[in-house]
Each structure stands twice: as C-alpha cells, then as structure tokens.
C-alpha cells in the first residue's frame, strides 16, 4: 500500500467523532429558520465540516439524531453535494475552475502548473496533508479567468508564475 497517510482508509477515525455542543446548538438554531428540521441538513453538514475538515460516518448519525431524521437521508444529501467531503481532505482546499471561460483563458495550463507545483492531480491531496485540489464549476469570476479559490479567497487571473507566492500564504 503506497497510500499517503491522509488517504489511507485505516486512518479514517470515525469512531472518535463527537459532536461539539456549540455545533449542536448552531444546528438547532438553523432548524428554526425552516418549516421542517430536514432543511437544516446541508448547513449541519457544513457545521461539522468547518470544525472537522470533513464528515465522518459517525457525524452522519449524530446529525440525523439532531434533525430527527434517518441517517440514510443525511447520507443521501451528504453524497449529492460536491462541497461536502465524505473523506479526509487537506488543511486547505483549492477549487480550480474548469468551466468554459477559464478553459478558454488557460485552465489546462493552470491545472498542469498546480499539478507540477503540488505533485498531485485533480481530486488528490498532498502527502503532507496541506492541500486538496478539486475542480469546480464556474466561480463567477470569468472576467478574471483562469480563476481559482483557496479556502475562502478567490484569485484570478492566475498565471503559473503566481503560484509559488500564492500557495505560500496557506501553511
């Protein structure tokens, strides 16, 4: 097995998961915004992910308990949405836009430069667990294509030469 620690299934410590009391309170508050608790499902998954980085199995059951729904409906939602991670990811998420305007302004070159710089391809995590690189739909920054997002920050147009300085900011 040549897998890196972060993607080794044996290290997915689901049984260690505990729902933080603050997070449970935030979920209950979110439920108050809607007619039915199920509506808070996506936000609940995001609350777990904000603290934990990703959503382990036991978080699914914990959320289901808070919402008063079956775990299958939480899992169904968790697996539908692309920004909910059901396996460990790096400390920082790079979302690189692969949609048409960026494709026409240099997505291929940017993806290759990222790959070269980080030593990973789309969908992978660096061995040191620092970055996960994912493709994303149009970031609504097409006038700055090719564009990417690192965590909450949007960049564009990004040239290959910008990457060393840019990535440096995320340790």
């Amino acid at each position, binding site marked *: 097995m040549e897998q890196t620690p972060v993607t080794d299934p044996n290290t997915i410590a689901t049984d260690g998961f505990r729902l933080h009391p603050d997070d449970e309170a935030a979920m209950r508050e979110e439920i108050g915004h809607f007619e039915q608790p199920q509506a808070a499902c996506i*936000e609940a998954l995001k609350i777990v992910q904000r603290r934990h980085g990703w959503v382990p199995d036991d978080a699914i059951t914990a959320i289901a308990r808070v919402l008063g729904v079956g775990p299958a409906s939480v899992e169904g939602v968790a697996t539908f*949405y692309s920004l909910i991670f059901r396996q460990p990811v790096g400390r920082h998420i790079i979302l690189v836009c692969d*949609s*048409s305007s960026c494709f026409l302004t240099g997505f291929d070159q940017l993806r290759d430069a990222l790959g070269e710089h980080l030593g990973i391809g789309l969908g992978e995590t660096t061995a040191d667990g620092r970055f996960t690189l994912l493709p994303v*739909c149009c970031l*609504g920054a097409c006038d700055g294509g090719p564009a990417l997002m690192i965590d909450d920050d949007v960049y564009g147009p990004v040239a290959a030469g*910008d990457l060393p300085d*840019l990535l440096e900011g995320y340790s």
Partner: protein
Amino acid sequence: MNSQRQSPIYKSRLLQPVAERSPETHPLTWRLRDDGQVVDLKEYQSKEGYQAVSQVLNGHDPGAVIAAMKEANVRGRGGAGFSAGLKWSLTMQGGDIPRGYIVCNADEMEPGTFKDRLLMEQQPHLLIEGMILAAFANNARYGYIFLRGEYVESARVLSEALAEARDAGWLGPDVAGSGFDFDIALHTGAGRYICGEETALLNSLEGQRANPRAKPPFPGQSGAWGKPTVVNNVETLCNAPAVMLRGADWYQGLSGDGTDDGGTKLYGASGLVNRPGLWELPIGTTGGELLELAGGLRDGKKLKAWLPGGASTGFLLPEHLDLPLDFDTVGKEGSRLGTGLITVVTEDQSMVALMRNLEQFFARESCGWCTPCRDGLPWTVKLLLALERGEGEAGDVELLDKLAADCGPAQTFCAHAPGAAMPLETALRHFRHEFEQGIRQSKGKPHGDPIPVGEV
C-alpha cells in the same frame, strides 16, 4: 518570473465609473462606488433606498405592483426570460391559501456568468428591497436567499445587510410601519450546478438531494413545503424598486427602439478579450458593442464564435454581432439570451476541444434522474474526446447529432439537458468540418492542440 506581480486577488467590478451612471439611466448600478466598497444602509437610504418600499407598502395594493411589473415587462434575468409580473400574477393567494415564500435564486453557476455576484457584494440592500416588494405583491410571509456556497464574500455582505435592514425596521413584524410582516434568511448551498434549476433549488432548500420536481404544479401553486413560492433571479428582483419608483413607462423607455424588452441589463464579456468585464447597458445592446467595450480580442486575434449568455446557450457567429441582445431576437437565431454575459471563442481555439469541455461540465452536473441526460451526456464526452484526438470513427458526428436531439426540449425532466444540447447542436451546425476532421485524420494528427491562450 513574476516577482513584482501582486497576488491576483479577484474583486468583482463594474467597468463604468460613477460619472457615467445616473438614477435615470442605470437603475441597477448608479449607486455603486468607484472604490468597489459595499453601499451600506446609510448610503443606500441617502440614495433613494427603501423609498419604493415605503411608498408601495403604505399606499398601494399588491395588485398594483404586479401590474407595474407586467407593464414594465421585466423578463427573468436568470436566463429563461419569463415575465416577472406575469409569474407574480399566477401565484396562488387569497382566501384560505397559506402565505408562502419568496426565494431569490443566487446560485449563479452558469459558466461565463459573473453578474449577480457584483449586485450582492456591493449593493445588498437593493436586492433586499426588491425581495420585500416581491413579498408584498405575492403575499409571502418569508424569504430565502439561496446563495451558492462558494460566494463567501456575498454571504458576509448579505448577512450584515440583513441585520442592518432588520434593525432599521425594513424587515420584521411591521415593515416600514405598514403592518406587513416579512423577514429573510440566507441559505448557503454546497455545490452542484443543478441547484440553480428552480425546482431542484426548492428540494435543496428543504434539505433534500437537488433533483428537479415535476411541473405542474408550478412553484407559484405548490413550492417550498407545499406553499406558494416565487423563485426569481437576483438581477430580476433588483429591478423592482426602480420600476415602482419611476414607473413602467420610464423603465420601458430605457431600452432602445429595436427591442420589446424593457430596462437595462448587466451585460458582460469574457474569454480572450482585452478588457473582460461587466457593464449595465440598455437591453438590446449588441454583441459588437460589448466586444468594443471589452477592447476587442487579445493579440489581434479573430473572432470565430460566441456564446450570448452562458454555457447553455447556442453558439452565434461574427455575423450576429449586430443583433440586439434581447430575449426574442437571440431566440430567433436558434440560441438564447441566457444570462447576457458573452463568452468569445477565437479563430485559433478548437470548437471540438471547447465542446468537450462544455459537455464534461454538463455530464458531471447532471442530477442523474433521466436517461438521455445521465447516459447521453457522458457518451457525447466520449465521442468528443475521440474526435479531439483524431481518433473518431465514421458516424460519430451523426451520433452526436442524435444525442443532441435526444437531449432537446421537452424530452427530459428539466432544462439541464436542453441546455447541454443547444451549444452542441449549434456547434455541429456551424462548425461541422472541425468535428469531421477528427475522423478523416483517423490515427493521424490529433485535432486538439492545447487551447492557445497567450499570456495570462
């Protein structure tokens, strides 16, 4: 190499300075600041902000709002161009029908589109005011802004603005002292283009998987939690305050004589142009005018084709640059206005490679509910990849024709598949030779050199 180059932080911006914008001519953007900072409540109120809400809620009846929106002919800016006033007139209300919802579609994910972001990041109160007017017209009790998860800055600005509006009494149990109660919550999504389809959006809002729903019933009859629900795009809702303040006639007069549509539009251009960007212009502005504002194509390149309003619209040619970009005119050319932000393709860029990229997007974003979309789109990707490598087989182009036809209007559960079919059908029609080259050069020279982009 680029040691002096600043970190390329992206900031949404309009390419027209304050001096060029006025309340009479730029209803959507006249308040925006040249420094790009958010127009806060104080500044918004000092620039006619919430005046429409004060006047309408304290003096008019909901029917008057609907009538004005109908007369102004504000057509849906989310891409389909359906009259907002007509939609509002079809919402079930009155008698023992429960009060429902106003949902703002802020899922902006159509490739090539970056307009709603500007309105939300820099002028959140215009959207809030538009939603209050829509709520009043449709007797809605609560509003949701369904915002895509990646719009972090929009979320921050909107949350602050909602709190400001609530504190000032523009939202809450007694809006503007009128006795009308209405409030808005911000809902942020978690990815997937299909969430922007209005019935998928409602499922997503309810915390379900975002598969579209069957229509009828339309959301106006039975939407979120079975209640009457109005779904409108950000830009559509942002038009309502000025229509109510200045009147339908004024709004109609904003657009040129060459078009039946009213008002202005946030137009934009991206691709290899010198000055990609956004402008608020009279609806009916031409593609040629947009290209000119964008400073023409980079490095003296030549225009091959363009998409008028996002990935799900049909390709137009240089000969179409003189057409007014309104819903009906573009529709007559076998395309759609869509979101009105054009994407340009230069002569040296391969249509086959671009089509492959587009269909990869549509295939990945299919919700998987119906067969032509779930299975047909990956098949087009496979064929296009082969043609791109010069490994296509005889019959592949005809097969693409058929797959595009199978995904055409009314053959699938929602408009995602027709959106995937339209660029493909038009590309095959206008640039058939490029696709056929991928066959004739069987095992020979690959077709798809990397897309040439020049300096970024």
